[in-house]
């Protein structure tokens, strides 16, 4: 089996030749190539080259065209602050001054902000890897983009103070996401990962997730499936146990779970969903290969009989991680170069 077949098998609960392993390596790929993170997230060609070098080094089963969580909001008009070797952050939210929502256009992925660079990276990765390795794109989730358009605090208060306006912003966000994700599939992404950190119960209560995020995630995943995505991958970090039961309703095929959810909890809630996780991200920075290996083997044991499992980290492997720790995770499944 090649990497893509291996992941497809795991996603479908068929038996792969070995457990697939995905390093959630984004800025870390730049760090390995001595490319500062702020350069890595601005140039599609550089991003793709770094991803291919990291794949060559680690030998895991997926590569990512992932920049940061501000790509969509920048394309919509927010102003970002770029600093040396860091992910950019929003300096001015496009909707922070009660801007008329009707004045916003849905960004064209081929022309606005860094979206074209992400598509360029996907085209290069697709061309280089074909259907050998999973090529993953990325969009943020509807509520995450909403917080990136308004600011998190403002978005949360709006849920109480002016819910109709929040819904309008979320509907706009959903349009942006669908258009961008569809373009990613056309550019060569097998899966556009939906990264939705602001939808975590650490930020919004589960009742609001059900009320305003779930229906929009359903629309996003239905659109991606219709566009030809191999599976629907939802990535929400943090204490997600209370919202796991909603994932099947959203159409999630692969669910990431973070270190604060146990394998048993995740398996119990999502019996027919492929799970990816959940080694603690910080462990890749401050732990040892032996400890990473031990964590990985515990996970492999926990999922041994079930299948439907991809060994991974709970969230992004931090840019400053120790390469030997990432390699240890890959070796745990018998992979690697």
């Amino acid at each position, binding site marked *: 089996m090649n990497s893509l077949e291996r992941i497809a098998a795991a996603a479908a609960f068929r038996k792969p030749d070995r457990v697939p392993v995905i390093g959630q390596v984004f800025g870390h790929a730049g760090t390995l190539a001595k490319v500062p993170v702020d350069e890595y997230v601005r140039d599609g060609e550089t991003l793709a080259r770094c991803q291919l070098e990291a794949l060559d080094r680690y030998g895991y089963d997926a590569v990512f065209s992932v920049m940061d969580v501000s790509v969509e909001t920048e394309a919509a008009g927010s102003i970002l*602050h770029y600093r040396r070797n*860091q*992910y950019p*952050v929003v300096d001015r939210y496009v909707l922070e001054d009660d801007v008329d929502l009707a004045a916003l256009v849905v960004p064209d992925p081929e022309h606005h902000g860094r979206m074209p660079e992400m598509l360029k990276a996907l085209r290069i990765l697709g061309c280089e890897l074909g259907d050998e390795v999973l090529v993953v794109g990325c969009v943020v989730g509807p509520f995450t983009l909403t917080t990136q358009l308004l600011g*998190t*605090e403002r978005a*949360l*208060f709006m*849920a*109480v103070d002016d819910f109709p306006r929040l819904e309008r912003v979320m509907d706009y966000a959903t349009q942006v996401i669908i258009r961008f994700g569809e373009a990613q599939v056309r550019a060569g992404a097998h899966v556009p990962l939906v990264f939705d950190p602001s939808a975590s*119960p*650490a*930020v*919004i*209560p589960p009742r*609001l997730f059900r009320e305003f995020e779930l229906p929009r995630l359903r629309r996003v995943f239905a659109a991606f499936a219709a566009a030809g995505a191999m599976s629907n991958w939802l990535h929400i*970090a*943090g*204490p997600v146990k*209370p919202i796991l039961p909603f994932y099947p309703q959203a159409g999630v095929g692969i669910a990431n779970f973070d*270190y604060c959810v146990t394998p048993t909890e995740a398996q119990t809630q999502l019996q027919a969903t492929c799970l990816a996780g959940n080694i*603690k*991200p*910080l*462990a890749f*920075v*401050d732990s040892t290969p032996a400890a990473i290996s031990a964590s990985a083997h515990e996970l492999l044991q926990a999922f041994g009989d079930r299948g439907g499992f991809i060994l991974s980290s709970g969230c992004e492997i*931090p*840019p*400053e991680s120790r390469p030997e720790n990432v390699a240890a995770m890959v070796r745990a499944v018998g992979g690697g170069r």
Partner: protein
Amino acid sequence: MKPAVLMTAILEGDSAEAVLQAHLLTAAGVGAEQIIVEAIEPAMLRLDKKCTAEDFDLLEIMLSGRAVTEVMKVLYPSGAPASSDKGTVVIATPEGDVHDLGKGIFKMVLAGSGYRVVDCGKDCPLDRLIDVVDTERPLAVGVSGLLTTITPQVRKIKGMLADRGLQHVRVLAGGAALKQSSASALNVDFIGESAFDGIHYLNGLVRAER
């Protein structure tokens, strides 16, 4: 005029009602300290018990926090009180991280729990943080962050405090990145899972000092 009505308004996150009740109480001659002790602190206590790890609701905490902030403006129109029985806490998001939602929550909960708060803001250089600690002589320093890249900075804080003879000032950490670590690995005195965890720790310090 009953502080209990104000407490209910805070718990319901009803800022307008909370402000109205605060005005009514002050007009009736109830002092700011009494309002804090009889309305705001009990509200924070109830919120603490309600928002468990299993039933966490950031929005509810933020709404109550917003109500507390508005009430404090009524009680202290010229700004935060110059001192507090419980003591001062200096808070910051260290340089390299601008995600300060967690710090904002901690600030609201600290103020509502009777602490004086000095907020050094986000993306705060350590030198500035230590200067503020030197000036304010607080009970503790609280740092939070979303990015793992700030952990090396957090590890330095205790050493920098000791260099200024401030080794008695406790260091608390919280936030998605920092709480993945342990207090010993991060070289801090305490890591809180939530803002209320931090309050429990500080209240323990205050009790021990009395």
